């Protein structure tokens, strides 16, 4: 396991396999949603998403054309119905086997003729063309049922995304919620960074009475559950006339994000070399100049880490938006709320649910993979020192 103990092949294999299993276990849930969002509703309910990557074998049941309408008199008391079994159906794939009763589903190969007794016959070709022949009595009433073993190739579609994002008639679409979420997230990320950066600089490099106390207070407030803030702040917002809206939700996110922001940024700024700051002071730079010209550029990694945290947290938030933003008008719904609504109203329509959910997690995932380095750095700065 550890370099020096030697690498036994068996151990290395076991190690690799167990990590592969772990990774698959963690990847599978998201993959399921991702794959499902590219399938139609019928496909999703017909088979599990894991089988959609391979050609799917399924049994379908179709009736031949109605004999009373379409039978042809052959003379001698014999009648015939001719046609294509897939008429009127969208079908892609190949016919493997077929049957006329459910007892043995793969009784015949394509091109074979089934003897239904008393001279009644049914012939089905690979392309779906069939001939059903028999006497007056047999070729009447209900049409013959045909059970078919068909293999359909993997089939994915973008129509769900079209419907969820671009369909103007879809009142449950995500486009509006997407913009609303962006409107919440961008200021709710930038404002706390601005405020916290100034405060963190003051706490790290300026001398004033009460500094230690303030730092302790920030550490304490780090863990205060935001649940406590809901009612008092909502009453406050109502009392001062902000009510429910973007301003309220920005302020709330700013307040809730600040302790972590100040904590992370201060820890980082304290570690910056003292010489640079003192040299700048000797050269006559004011605190404001030092902050904007030296500290801010140098603190970029810490600013980036917090920005990612706050972005993920505000984008993914449900509770704060529910309490401070979303009113009865329905104009200010965010994506998380929209998905919860869909879970209630369209619980079984997995194609809509999966696509909507994936639209909402795609942006954070992209940010995550692009900025992972900063995220990890921020986590480490926040918890291990």
């Amino acid at each position, binding site marked *: 396991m*550890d370099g020096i103990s030697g690498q036994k092949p068996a151990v290395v294999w076991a*190690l*690799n396999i167990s990590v592969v299993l*772990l*990774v698959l276990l*963690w*990847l599978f849930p*998201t993959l399921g*949603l991702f794959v*499902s969002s590219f399938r139609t509703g019928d496909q999703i*309910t017909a*088979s*599990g998403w*894991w089988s959609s990557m391979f050609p799917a074998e399924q049994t379908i049941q179709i009736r031949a054309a109605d004999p009373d309408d379409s039978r042809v008199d052959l003379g001698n008391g014999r009648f015939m119905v001719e046609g294509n079994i897939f008429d009127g159906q969208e079908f892609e794939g190949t016919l493997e086997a077929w049957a006329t009763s459910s007892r043995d589903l793969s009784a015949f190969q394509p091109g074979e003729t089934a003897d239904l007794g008393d001279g009644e016959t049914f012939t089905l070709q690979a392309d779906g063309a069939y001939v059903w022949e028999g006497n007056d009595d047999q070729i009447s009433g209900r049409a013959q049922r045909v059970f078919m073993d068909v293999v359909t190739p993997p089939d994915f579609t973008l129509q769900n995304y079209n419907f969820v994002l671009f369909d103007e008639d879809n009142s449950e679409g995500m486009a509006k919620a997407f913009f609303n979420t962006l*409107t919440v997230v961008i*200021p709710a990320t*930038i*404002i706390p960074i*601005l*405020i*916290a950066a*100034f*405060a963190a600089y003051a706490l790290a490099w*300026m001398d*004033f009475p009460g500094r*230690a106390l303030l730092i*302790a207070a920030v*550490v*304490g*407030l780090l863990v*205060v*559950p935001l*649940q*406590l*803030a*809901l*009612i*008092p702040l909502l009453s406050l917002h109502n009392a001062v006339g902000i009510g429910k809206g973007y301003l309220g939700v920005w*302020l709330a996110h700013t*307040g*809730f994000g*600040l302790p972590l922001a100040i904590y992370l940024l201060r820890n980082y700024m304290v570690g910056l070399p003292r010489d640079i700051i003192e040299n700048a002071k000797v050269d006559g730079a*004011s605190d*404001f100049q030092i902050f904007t010209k030296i500290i801010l550029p140098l603190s970029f990694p810490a600013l980036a880490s917090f920005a990612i945290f706050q972005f*993920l947290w505000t*984008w*993914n938030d*449900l*509770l704060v938006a529910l309490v401070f933003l979303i009113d009865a008008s329905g104009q200010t719904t965010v994506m998380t709320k929209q*998905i919860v609504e869909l*879970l209630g109203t369209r619980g079984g329509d*997995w194609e809509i*649910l999966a696509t909507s*959910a994936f639209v909402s997690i795609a942006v*954070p995932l992209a940010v*995550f*993979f692009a900025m992972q380095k900063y995220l990890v750095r921020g*986590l480490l700065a926040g*918890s*291990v020192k």
Partner: protein
Amino acid sequence: MHPAILGLFTIIIGVGGCLAYFYGSNLLLDKVLFKPTGPNAGRNINRANMIRPWLFLLPAILALGLYLAYPVFATLHLSFMERGPGGRLDFVGLENYTQMFAEPKFREAMWNNVLWLITVPAAATGFGLLAAQLTDRLSWGNIAKSIVFMPMAISFVGAAVIFKLIYEARPEDVAQIGILNHLYLTFGGTEPQQWLQIPFWNNFFLMAVLIWIQTGFAMVILSAALRGIPEETVEAAIIDGANPFQIFFKIKVPQIMSTIVVVWTTITIATLKVFDIVFAMTNGQWETQVLANYMYDKLFRANDWGMGSASAMIIMLMVTPILVWNVYNARKEMR
């Protein structure tokens, strides 16, 4: 107006206002109130420097005070009150608390929360430690870590949809589209199960969501801690004939114990506040209620501010030991 333009507009105002404050107030301090020129230049510079920290801190202190500190006390106050007709508040003492403790749904939420608090931090930290150790010396370890870490970026609501698809149950005679039921039936189960409706066990199916999300966090931090272990201690143990398990449990784990504790408490806090998962997946039905969702129910569905605040205070009470411990450590470090 198109929502995108409206959004852009509001963004500019919000962010611009914030920038204007810092720039303007500093300008005011330096150019108008205490000019660093003239006969009183020295005194003015000193005064400006005394005020400036507070200028920098003011928005932060206001926001922290108003949005985090004040609500703690306001909620405490509200938890002793009963909202009467017309928004009047009457003092009722501990009645909200006694009434709450008498409610079966609250006891259920309390008990479930304890279950969450025992299971989730332990499982997430355990899996995280396992993942960190396994991927440590692997050539493709970083890719593996990325994938285990990825759920961190997914919202609780998104994760709820993801796991609902996993737990989906369909009638016995049609194909199962939830992978759990598919596996269950493949390996000898008799009929599809509604996993989220089996009391007691359904809690664990909900917890799986949070464990799935939090494991990556634990892994990242513990993996950094494992890398920080001095190589010599491990080498010495190997020379003394320790097997890999002894090295892991007796040499490595004790050295990163403080980090494990930090990870554990951080996940504990996240677990205590769990709301979205339960709200989106079961909404507390089938005996899966938790405190945060109970509180939301009381506040916004039953409109009972007294009991809602009382249950919020219970959450606060459970966080307090961690709060005190954090502050104590921070002060110790600063000295």
